[in-house]
């Protein structure tokens, strides 16, 4: 890496660093590298989206949320999505191909990993410790939080003390206050929700408008995504971002060094981007898929896969939801969505519960009228074959909407998923994307530990909504479409025999190939991971920049 190149590289001109994927980790890396004067090209299979693309201001918002803006790429079935074969998986993976990646549709819960998440082996005797600690990562986290514009209240006793968030907390609303009533009565932990949604104008973001449509993209330009907060800075500093570019293979030379990538552009033409260093940031499914696609005589089992661990240890956070219905009106359509209130009461391990590790709860509003008839309320309409339509719908539908719409609070439970070699990403022998590139296939079973954990948490969550006065509760156990958090498939560690990348994200097998996304996570925590993904990416890229004069390159 020369670090001397100024200005944006022209198409296909060799560069210092090629980044594959323009989501949170790729954007963090691009911005830091460009600011350091390193020439950068990023290839992104999706496109730029504008706030006006998102449907939240439109009457048909709830209807398109179930298809065009659904987080499952197999449901959306857009040309820029790659399909994922899921017949052997208990959970469907969720993602979005665009500048900003899957955060385009995320809820923006900002929940950094806790100290124990980095020391699972030492504290609980299972899985693995991370090669660094919470305290090691904290400076990067605090820096990221300033850029992201996190809203929240400092002093949460679930976390060690840290720097205050850059914007005040969002209102918890009537639904959040209802959650508080129950948790307060039980003496359980709660805290006003910390979100990647600023309450004041911040770094190109508008303040949250509480529209409540976060999960179909924010039409207010208020949810923090890197297409707003990072890429404009990176591009201003000279980074070049190529969209509609689907990478097929990372190439290596006779010395075993990465030389760049072959990609298919929007016109179906095959192109080649050469670089001294390659960084993969394509998420816990896209990254192992690409490495497994990049087979060669030197790497017959896939690039950087001498450990055999590429694609293994997939973690997706099994998820359950508890819905509480109340007499009071709760303004169920008012955001953020986003978490209004969070609870870490049962986050840390207590082996008397029959499982290890724990889960975080996020309280959210109930949503619009179509949502209460089709999401958590879907069980109501599971009429058997002999039922009459008029009995299953009809007055029943009116009663359901009258009872639940505007009267709901939903707890989402995110439990730690432990790594297992048998949960993995492989290449499907038949299925391909729209460019003919083999699609990934998931082999994934929810573990007994996760089953027990979610049962326990559902029971406690039910107690929490009942303590708040719920007149009806509904449990949706292990929702299938909840594989938001794609982690673990290129494990980070010191030992090349048991990990894919070293503690700085460099692959053990290819010294100029790096992975900075959530696939490197040794364990998954029991929280939404974007805060930690971005912080780890910043930590790793800073190390790469600091050592760039010594960096081996093709």
């Amino acid at each position, binding site marked *: 890496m020369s670090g001397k190149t100024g200005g944006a590289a022209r198409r296909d001109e060799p560069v210092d660093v090629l980044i594959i994927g323009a989501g949170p980790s790729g954007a963090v890396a691009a911005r830091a590298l460009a600011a350091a004067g390193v020439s950068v090209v990023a290839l992104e299979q999706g496109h730029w989206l504008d706030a006006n693309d998102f449907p939240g201001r439109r009457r048909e918002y709830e209807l398109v949320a179930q298809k065009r803006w659904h987080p499952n790429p197999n449901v959306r079935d857009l040309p820029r999505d790659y399909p994922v074969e899921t017949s052997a998986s208990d959970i469907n993976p969720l993602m979005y191909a665009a500048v900003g990646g899957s955060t385009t549709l995320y809820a923006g819960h900002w929940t950094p990993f806790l100290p124990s998440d980095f020391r699972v082996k030492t504290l609980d005797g299972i899985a693995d410790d991370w090669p660094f600690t919470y305290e090691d990562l904290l400076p990067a986290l605090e820096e990221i939080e300033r850029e992201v514009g996190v809203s929240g209240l400092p002093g949460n006793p679930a*976390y060690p003390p840290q720097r205050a968030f850059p914007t005040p907390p969002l209102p918890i609303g009537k639904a959040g206050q209802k959650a508080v009533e129950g948790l307060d009565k039980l003496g359980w932990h709660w805290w006003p929700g910390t979100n990647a949604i600023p309450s004041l104008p911040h770094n190109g973001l508008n303040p949250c408008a509480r529209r409540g449509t976060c999960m179909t993209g924010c039409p207010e330009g208020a949810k923090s995504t890197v297409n707003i907060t990072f890429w404009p800075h990176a591009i201003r500093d000279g980074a070049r971002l190529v969209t509609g570019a689907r990478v097929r293979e990372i190439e290596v030379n006779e010395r075993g060094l990465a030389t760049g990538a072959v990609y298919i552009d929007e016109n179906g033409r095959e192109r080649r981007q050469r670089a001294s260093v390659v960084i993969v940031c394509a998420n816990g499914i896209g990254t192992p898929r690409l490495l497994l696609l990049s087979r060669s005589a030197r790497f017959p089992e896939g690039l950087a896969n001498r450990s055999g661990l590429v694609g293994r240890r997939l973690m997706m956070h099994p998820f359950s939801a508890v819905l509480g219905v109340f007499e009071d009106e709760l303004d169920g359509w008012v955001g953020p969505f986003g978490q209004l209130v969070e609870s870490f009461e049962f986050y840390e391990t207590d082996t008397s519960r029959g499982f290890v590790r724990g889960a975080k709860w996020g309280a959210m509003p109930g949503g619009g009228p179509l949502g209460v008839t089709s999401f958590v309320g879907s069980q109501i309409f599971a009429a058997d074959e002999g039922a009459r339509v008029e009995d299953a719908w009809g007055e029943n539908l009116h009663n359901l909407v009258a009872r639940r719409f505007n009267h709901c609070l939903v707890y989402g439970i995110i439990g730690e998923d432990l790594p297992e070699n048998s949960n993995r990403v492989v290449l499907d022998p038949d299925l391909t994307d729209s460019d003919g590139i083999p699609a990934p296939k998931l082999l994934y079973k929810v573990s007994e530990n996760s089953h027990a954990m979610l049962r326990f948490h559902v029971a406690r969550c039910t107690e929490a909504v009942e303590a708040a006065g719920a007149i009806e509760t509904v449990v949706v156990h292990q929702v299938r479409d909840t594989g938001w958090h794609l982690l673990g498939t290129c494990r980070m560690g010191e030992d090349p025999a048991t990990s894919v990348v070293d503690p700085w994200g460099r692959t053990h097998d290819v010294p100029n190939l790096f992975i900075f996304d959530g696939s490197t996570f040794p364990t998954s925590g029991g929280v939404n991971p974007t805060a930690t993904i971005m912080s780890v990416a910043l930590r790793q890229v800073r190390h790469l920049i600091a050592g760039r004069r010594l960096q081996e390159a093709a």
Partner: protein
Amino acid sequence: MTLTDADRAKFAALADRLIPAYRNMPAASAVDVQHAMLDLALQARPELAEDFARGLAACSAETPSESINALFRQDHAAFGAVNLMAVAAYYMTDEVRRLIGYPGQESPPYDPHETPGYLLDGSLERVVRRGPLYRPTPR
């Protein structure tokens, strides 16, 4: 897809089986689900057009109850499309939204600097007083 007046009338009859008048709520056809809102719903979900058309073709306007029940038993995809179009169109109408108190996804104003109630009523203080929950990094 192009719908004839007869198609719309048939859809209205089927929709009324799914969403009849009840207490203060009107039947589906009473809020005209079969016109502008059906068009909007179909436009929003073009992938359902084929299932919807098949469902409509399989049903009779004269025997809507028998038709919709037969469709439910025999063609889940077509029934699903007809059902979703009816329910979505119904809850997109101004009148139904007014009756259930739904203004649509709005952006209510708020003051981010206002002191939240949980800081005034002592409830958050009780959380703080219970002390840290996290397990520190082992040394």
